[in-house]
């Protein structure tokens, strides 16, 4: 069973320009839109991203979905789509949004494509602004210590807070754990 927890914080920015979307049908799909770097209309781009994901297109393959995004969104849009499959996950990312996986006591960036998962594996999807205040070793240690996705996220936020007191622009992230 996959457990997940999402986090969104405006930080010291005037508005939310990042977005976190979840779609449960046909499979759990996590999508993160990183609009903070967009110079023109980041809110409308985020809205368009959301509408595509919630439409019929959202249930189609990641390959197809990413081609729709590439066609409809600004070419500088940065986003990540992660879909949970039967024995793993499929990931597609563009720009400064990426997922990191904790597996066998090590942490790696999740590449684009299908990736097999085993029990106890943990994934964090976040924008580069979220990762800016974290080290891989910190993310790894918290994943190995925490009992749930909620715990893990709180520990990560504590680390970010220790660096910048959450005065750091939008923070958007999702933690996922494949439970024993």
């Amino acid at each position, binding site marked *: 069973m996959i457990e997940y927890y999402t986090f969104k914080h405006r930080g010291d920015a005037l508005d939310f320009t990042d977005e976190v979307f979840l779609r449960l049908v046909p499979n759990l799909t996590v999508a993160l839109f990183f609009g903070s770097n967009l110079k023109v209309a980041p809110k409308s781009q985020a809205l368009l991203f959301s509408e595509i994901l919630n439409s019929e297109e959202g249930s189609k393959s990641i390959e197809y979905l990413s081609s729709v995004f590439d066609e409809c969104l600004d070419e500088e849009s940065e986003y990540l789509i992660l879909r949970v499959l039967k024995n793993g996950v499929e990931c597609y990312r563009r720009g400064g949004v990426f997922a990191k996986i904790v597996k066998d006591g*090590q942490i790696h960036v999740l590449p684009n494509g299908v990736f097999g998962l085993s029990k106890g594996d943990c994934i964090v999807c976040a924008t580069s602004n979220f990762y800016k205040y974290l*080290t891989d070793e910190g993310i790894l240690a918290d994943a190995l*210590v925490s009992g749930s996705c909620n715990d893990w996220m709180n520990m990560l*936020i504590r680390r970010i*807070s220790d660096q910048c007191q*959450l005065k750091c622009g939008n923070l958007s992230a999702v933690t996922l754990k494949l439970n024993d």
Partner: protein
Amino acid sequence: MYDFDLLPGDTVFAIEVALALFAIAFVSFTAISIYTLIKTTLYQKKHEDKINLMCDVAYFHERGKRGNQEDSVYISPLDQLVQHGLVAACSDGMGGLLNGEVVSKYVTDTLKERYPFDFNDQMEINKMITGISDKVYEDYHLSAGATLVMVHIMDDLLNFYNLGDSNIILIRNNRATLLNNKQNYAAIMIKKFSEGGIDTVDAYKDSRARGLTDFVGNHKCNVQMTKRPMKLRDNDIIIVGSDGVTDSMPLNRIVSHIHPDQNATSIARMIKYGVKSSKNPRQDNYSAIIIKLRRSIV
């Protein structure tokens, strides 16, 4: 050029025997070489994920400006490193409470008594630490307590255990990371503030922020521990120490004081003098165990 017909029969026979022996030796050498190569390749393939790391260990244990030493450290016997792994622990008696030095010494003495621990049975080690905490609670009823940070290293894997606000620091690629999460009120306030969508500046200003939410001596303590081990790498440096070290020497200063090629003793010396040179007028006891990991040569 030789004409063998001109040689005596005995000499020809001797040459033939020598040639036969040489051929046998050559074939044997080739066979043994191929066999060794295959065996080595198979062994390397089987063990490529499991690298044996050697632990170079050093420590310092200083009183600072306090009248007594309330820190206590434990390092397991290094001759049992291969069989049972390395355990390094630091316990810091809680300031403001009586008997801090008694409790911290009790913690490390009990660890010494109970060693060795099963590396893969984190729950059993958790139970042991909880037992120590319960015993302190029964004896002192929250009038005394201590923190505990402990690492258990086996081959290239690390498990860690934490109660309170002491430090387990990993230095990798010239970057220091605090591995454990401090169990204090600041953590609770940060969680509340972040859930409320506001910044956490006030959480750090609050006078209760550094107050501990868990420690050795708390009733039914909640030991923070790795549920699965973390993989270590060659040249990793682990510092297990009391907050007296990091109060005077933040993580980035520790990194700037040491060099990755130094051994554990040199690193310990650099950190110790780094704390001393900060001339903190309220310097707490400061103790740390430094573990430097090196790929072992078999």
